[in-house]
């Protein structure tokens, strides 16, 4: 288990991760969780339980939409899909993240402590 700061940090980016997961096609909640696990090699310790509130909040904001379908085993399954708004949002988040992480990287790799 990673320490607390990592987890807090992650909660903020959860929505972005979900949006990305869905950008490849509609998925149900469990599939999203599995995809994130696989892509990150289970490096990010997201509790399954944190996922669902994030999914519902995204739905409430209209970035994703949900549909109830029947699975192969005739079970009700809630499937989420990215909306146009969601797609735009994902792009913005990615750009934002690149700038942010780039800046942090530069800071951490700085060789001198003085301002030029």
């Amino acid at each position, binding site marked *: 288990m990673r320490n607390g700061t990592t987890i807090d940090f992650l909660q903020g980016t959860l929505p972005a991760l979900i949006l990305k997961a869905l950008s490849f096609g509609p998925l149900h*909640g*469990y599939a999203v*969780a599995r995809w994130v696990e696989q892509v990150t090699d289970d490096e990010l310790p997201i509790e*399954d339980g944190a996922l*669902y*509130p994030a999914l*519902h909040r995204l739905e409430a904001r209209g970035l994703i939409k949900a549909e109830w379908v*029947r699975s192969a085993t005739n079970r*009700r399954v*809630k499937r989420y899909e990215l909306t146009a708004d969601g797609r735009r949002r994902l792009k913005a988040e990615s750009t934002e993240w690149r700038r942010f992480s780039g800046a942090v990287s530069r800071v951490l790799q700085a060789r001198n402590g003085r301002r030029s």
Partner: protein
Amino acid sequence: MTRPPDGRPERSLWGPDVPRDVDDELADHLAEREAELRAEGLDPEAARARAREKFGDVGAVRRALVTMDESRERVRRRHDYLGDLGRDLRLAVRSLRRSPGFAITAFVTIALGIGATTAVFSIVDATALRPLPYPDPTRLALAVRQMPRDGGKTTACSFQDYVDWSERTDLFERTAAAVRSGFMIDGPAGLEWIWSGRVSSSFFSVLGVRPVLGRDLTDEDSRYGAARVAVVSHDFWRGRLGGDPDLSRHDVELSGQAHRVVGVLPASFRSMLHLPGAADVWVPLVVEPQTNKTRDARWLTFVARIRADVPLDRARAVIETMSRQAYADRSDETLRRGFTLVSAGDFVSGAFRPALFTLLAAVSCMLLIACANVANLLVARSLARRREMAIRVAIGAGRARLVRQQLTESLLLGLAGGAAGLAVAWLILPTILRLSPATLPRLDEAGIDLRVLSFVLLVSIATSLLFGGFPALRASRREPSDVLGTSGGAAGGRDGLARRALMGTEVAVTVVLLAGAALLVTSFEKLVRVDPGFTVDRVATVKVVPSAKDRAVPLYFDDLLARVEALPQVEAAGLVDILPLLPAWANADVTARELAEDARPDIADEPVHYEIRTATGGYFEALRIPLLRGRAFTDVDAATPAAIVSDDLARRIWGNADPIGKRLHVGPPEQPWVPVVGVVGPVRHFGLDRDVDPMIYRAANPGASWPSTLVVRASGDPSAFAPALRSAILDLDRRALLTTIRSMEEVLIDSVAERRFYAFLLTSLGFIAAALAAAGLFGLVAYLVGERTREFGVCMALGAKPGRLLAGVVAGGLKVTAVGIVAGLAAALAATRLLTSLLFDLSPTDPWVLAGVAVLMLAIAGAACYVPARRVLRVDPVEALRAE
């Protein structure tokens, strides 16, 4: 909608089942996680536990999701609802604009119906429903007892009774006594009469009223010999005292005696407990030492505030027991029954409630008829719109949605009609109030206020649902395939039946209303034809208070009579102390033996109740009360007492023996003997609907107060004669005080004013209802003819005579009417019983009246059916066939 294996629908009528959705989603996740872990080799138990562990706190997440989603659902529903409402309203407005004929007819019908109902409600509310305008009014009570000979109730009790009851502090928080009084006061137009009350110092505190300026009356003011003070009404203070805040500068002269004004009552104060109208001035009740305090002198009204912990019934029982014991030895049976306690509200409104509620019921019937008419219109209209409805259903509009749309339209009509109705009520209320009898209490409070506004809102909504509900449900039920294929439905069928049933109901209700109106009118006609025993034709009356005092008074009145008789138009003139047909009395109850010499032995111990009047000879002549035996009073009788009895009393006391010369004790048995000098015809002294009242007339006597109401019969119109009369009186004594000169005819009309009012209102309602029913019939027949035009064309092409077809249509309409009339008469037989107390000499199921109403309704219906049916005559068979 597909259904899962467990059978429950996925969406409820109100939207998604949030908890279920959340459960399904989470269960699904956990199941898949479990399956994956089992595939990795864990046993089912461990897999389940691990899946849950990986998830986190399932319960907390579930709760958070449910809360979030439910609140989102609520917002979405509200948004949808408002959006739908807006859409429905716009649709309703557009749809109404497309059929202006329907919209206007319905709107006007509803406006009239609600307007009339609101006006009547406003009156009934003010008079009978609203609580009295005092703090905690349910605890106020008055003592009343029954008067003999169906005289109604009186509050008059003796001083001793007041003292006895006031001692019961276990029952009453506070008690008060009051008596009606009046004064002559100087006004802008000369001297005038104002009503006032003589009240104990506790009176205003019993009612819970405090003066807004100055002080209340105190015990000190009621002491015999104390300085004269008065408390005045707000209007009086503003009008006559100029609203001056410094009261110490103001004395008012009341009937010649100066009173210091010490207090001003609030503007909202109304006393209705013992006065017919508003009182302007209140003076302390002073019980002088020589006042008769025995139980024989009954003149006070007892008002009390019952203690909060004492129920009215208990206080009532105690008062009844006490007064029965006190009056146990009286000869008058109604006195022996003693006094009872009634709540102030019942006292003021009780007698009027049955009639007023009947009126409210009648106006509600009229509203029902209006609703039925509009419902009929809606059914006809929905028929015309059935293609539109069917298309809507076919493209997926839910039935609930359609019903809601129709109801929105109805509500729009109903609320708009209600608003217009409010305006109608506001307009007609003053007119109705002007016509209403002065005896109805608290009429000045009738108006459009918050209670009435709430009533209008409720009635508008109820009306909308009533006329709109049924047609809306029917319209949306039709299956699309029924209608889209055909080019028009049959004229009969379910819709025709519905309209005919509605029409029949309208006719039935109209018949009930007309029956009630006819009964009241007939009864009123019978009443005014009753001979009261005196004439009211061309008789003027006026009360005169001369400035002369004591011994000079009889001389003054002698002079006055001479002058008046000398006027050219005057046929006869006389004086009396109390006029007939006024709610004022002076009476006595004794046994026959105590009353008269030589009374018939078989009735010697029977109680005799009679009215006492003091009069001069000219009185009988002026009112044309026939002299049957002996003579009328002359000047001689002023010196030695004389009496005249009414014929009915004479026969009762002495049978067929000649009463002239026999002697009576007039009043209490201790009075000296008075000989009978004449017998006059019987009179109904208190009203046309009352029995004949036994009368004993006393000759005017200088020892007692002289009768001061002048009664004059003239040869022309009394109102033309009034100025001459007034100047004759004032010429003799410039400082005499006169009341307004009234004709006896006016007095008579006032005495029947209530019955006339109810008859008038019910008749108006009946006619409006009949007009509405006629309009409804007209519409129905016109519609039926329109629908069957093709059919008629075919018949006529095959040789049928147009006249026969016309007769057939009218007969159809009359059939519906006949059913309605029969139903209406049956209902009337039950309903008119409510009117029994208002009917004079008429049974509520009088067959002639009911038959008359049936014939009237048939005639109205016949006309209403005939006119639109004439269209049949204009049908062109060729055109009709071609249209196929």
